[in-house]
């Protein structure tokens, strides 16, 4: 069997990613049509609107057209790169995604990165000291936090660390991404960091366990491998065996997990975004579902799918570089 040649391998992966994306884009149209409700009525709820206004809104939305016509318009528009206009925000979907993307990547990206680093580090240490008190405490704590409801943990952090308990003052903001009225690059950056702490801590607390457990089990597996015994027999210091020989091999599954999780970064974290009033894509998607704001739902769905497909593609392409064994027949 020949090793996958560079361009052919790349081409096959890219084509399969594109086919997947087209399938998702087409399926997305029908998926959200299942949602009940009349968007024109939902967006005008509580307003003194008459039948003519409702009819005009349906006409503007295009929901007064037969489904086939709507599908045709959707396909033409989507493949031209136009994601349409949101029903409720009267703004281009692409602009809405862009305006919420930075907030989501800032929060979820940071939290994923910290979770991965913290989980991998603690997982490796736990494996090296398998069965020790530290191993048991770290593993149990991670699993406990993993099973805590995110919503509850977030609110507890707000009550204890944002509002303060007793004479202890609150240290962090209760929500939002920045304080109104703050100007200047450095003050805004510091203010945004200050706002990031609690939502990020919440996400890390409930998320790092998956990395800890995977790295721990992989390190344990690698530590019993023959090449480790050989390395030790050659007199290589224990720290070098662990850092240079065991860890790189043990981190391969974790690297895959990180890349796949990064694909999901853009879909945000609906619960954390809600508790901490974070203006990200997760809450935008939730708000779109309640209408239902079909163009926004379609746009976000395609965007989320494209991100996951793209990151999977990156993982596919990176894996042979990370692990030389994959390149061999």
């Amino acid at each position: 069997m020949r090793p996958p040649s560079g361009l052919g391998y790349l081409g096959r992966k890219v084509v399969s990613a594109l086919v997947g994306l087209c399938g998702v884009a087409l399926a997305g149209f029908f998926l959200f049509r299942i949602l009940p409700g009349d968007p024109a009525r939902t967006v005008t709820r509580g307003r003194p609107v008459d039948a003519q206004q409702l009819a005009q809104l349906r006409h503007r939305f295009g929901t007064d057209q037969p489904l086939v016509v709507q599908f045709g318009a959707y396909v033409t528009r989507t493949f031209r790169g136009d994601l349409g206009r949101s029903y409720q925000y009267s703004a281009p979907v692409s602009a809405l995604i862009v305006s919420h993307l930075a907030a989501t990547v800032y929060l979820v990206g940071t939290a994923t990165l910290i979770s991965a680093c913290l989980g991998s580090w603690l997982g490796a240490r736990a494996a090296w000291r398998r069965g020790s008190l530290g191993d048991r405490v770290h593993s149990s704590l991670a699993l406990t936090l993993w099973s805590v409801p995110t919503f509850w943990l977030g609110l507890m952090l707000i009550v204890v660390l944002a509002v303060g308990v007793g004479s202890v003052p609150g240290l962090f903001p209760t929500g939002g991404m920045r304080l109104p009225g703050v100007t200047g690059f450095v003050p805004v950056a510091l203010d945004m960091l200050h706002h990031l702490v609690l939502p990020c801590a919440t996400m890390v607390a409930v998320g790092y366990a998956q990395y800890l457990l995977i790295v721990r089990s992989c390190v344990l597996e690698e530590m019993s491998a023959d090449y480790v015994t050989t390395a030790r027999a050659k007199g290589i210091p224990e720290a070098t065996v662990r850092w240079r020989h065991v860890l790189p091999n043990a981190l391969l599954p974790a690297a895959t997990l990180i890349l796949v999780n990064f694909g999901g970064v853009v879909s945000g974290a609906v619960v954390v975004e809600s508790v901490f009033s974070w203006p990200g894509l997760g809450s935008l998607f939730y708000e779109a579902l309640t209408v239902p704001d079909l163009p926004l739902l379609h746009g976000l769905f395609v965007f989320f799918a494209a991100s996951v497909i793209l990151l999977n593609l990156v993982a596919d392409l990176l894996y042979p570089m990370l692990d030389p064994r994959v390149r061999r027949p």
Partner: protein
Amino acid sequence: MLALRHLAAAATLLIAQFAPGRDASEASGPVIARQSDVLTVATTGTIDSLNPFLAQRVLPTEIHRLVYDFLTNYDAADYHPVPALATSWSASADKLVWTFTIRPGMTWSDGVKVTAADVAWTYNLIMTNADAATANGSFVANFKSVSAPNDSTLVIRLARPQATMLALDIPVVPRHVWRSHAAKIAEFGNDTSFPVVGNGPFILTDYKQGQYVELSANENYWRGPPRFSRLYFRQYKDADAAVQALRKGEVDFVSRLTAAQFDALQHDRHVVRNRSAGKSFYTLQINPGASATSGQRFGDGNPALRDIRVRQAIRYAIDPQTLVDKTLGGYGQVGEGYLPPIFAADHWNPAPGQGYRYDPVKAEQLLDAAGYRRGPDGTRRTPGGQPFSLRLNGLTQRAADALNAPYVAAWLKAIGINVITSIVDEGRLADVEAVGNFDLMFDAWLTNPDPDYVLAIQTCAVRPVTPGAAFPGDAFVCDPVYDRLYAQQLVEYNPTVRSQVIQRMQQRMYADAYVNVLYYPNVLEAYRGDVIGSMLKQPQPNGMYSGQDGYWSWWSAAPVARPDEAASNPAIAVGVVAGAVFLVTFAVVAVRRRRTSAEDRE
């Protein structure tokens, strides 16, 4: 060690940035101190658009009330129409021509004079451009023409008399700014170029989507400038988090509190709570049998409900006081007439002893008389011999529905009616309602000072044109007598006589028992007493601050003088110090580990 020194330097910078005791006005960093002239209102509302021609949600319409003056306003004391952009008005003898005199000397925030032509241009745009009619089209649907013969006179000609001419809640925009946006009004968000030109008590100066709206005091406002120089609406997605922000002092006002949140705040010494009668009413709708405007019937509503004795039996079987006590925690008022008592002029109550009361015995007597006898299993049988069963629908998004449903089901079960409860998503419920496939349904509406809209949704004309089509009405009720009264009040320009007609409409609706008002929830809100010294309520003396019809609360809000206003918030400094200590400790540990590893390697 270099990395360690860098970290220490960064930590020092951070601490210096937030050091207590710095005067906020001199600080180059974030304004840590809460400035005494900044008012921050927490809101769980969302902004669909800041374009007043498109905005439908409550929050942007409230902001537009602060940014653009309307033709008239509602008095803070009792909601009667008072001058705003218009100083006076008159109607012709045939009731078809209204002439408004526009306030002299008013300017837009860019210095251009406000004239009647701005009002005429705004109204004409809504009348002629379907997209511009998105939000406020219903207000001008009866207009034949709007003109401005001179700068201070506005003339509106009507197709039919319209008693709601002093309740035109339409933001008037500057023609010289908006003219260039008219062609593509549906694509203009009015949220990219600040300050936004307006003529209300505040000027829209910034907006961060999903985060906050910044308004600055309009120093040239004709009624006088607001006392707070800046007003922020901070958006919270979670009401509990907003309450915590109030406790901490990050925000100064929260509204739409639940009973539990309101009670939990009673011991906070800096928090002042306010409980007001509300503008909304909560109903149990009974399906009269769905029909289109042509009279064609559709849906599968239980035909038993067309018998007034059955509807009245249901009404007698329900104890609204228990719902007020259990669901609202006591923060509400038992329902009677259709319009809430906060609108005292139009509210109607049955005479003492004449209204429905909780009386299961009478309910059973009515059902017996109607021919719905109990079967051997205790469940009543329809005249056709089938078990008498009704479906009860509610919304998941309205928490009260899920709480009230078990009570109503148990009360009806006690008089021999089986109830199948279904609390579903808004979209699904709308679909069920559109095709008329329901028996009982919880509903709630917010009332305006002019009740025309909530009265109109119960007329025959707002039923769907064809079976199953979406419609702006409420629940298919169609009573020709009610419709005649509705038409009568719409052309009655004498407020006292009009109120009398409106009360007769409510009396008829109450007797028919299709639309049963169970209660009027209170408005529960709270604010920081150490920030806000005073503000106007609406109505007075026991009204609300948030959700007013007008701008009275935020315009009148006066700050409390605080001698220590320059002091920084120690919490942030402590937080940053804690963060810095953590960073330094982490760096020390990391450096030591590297040294150990290096020694290992050696």
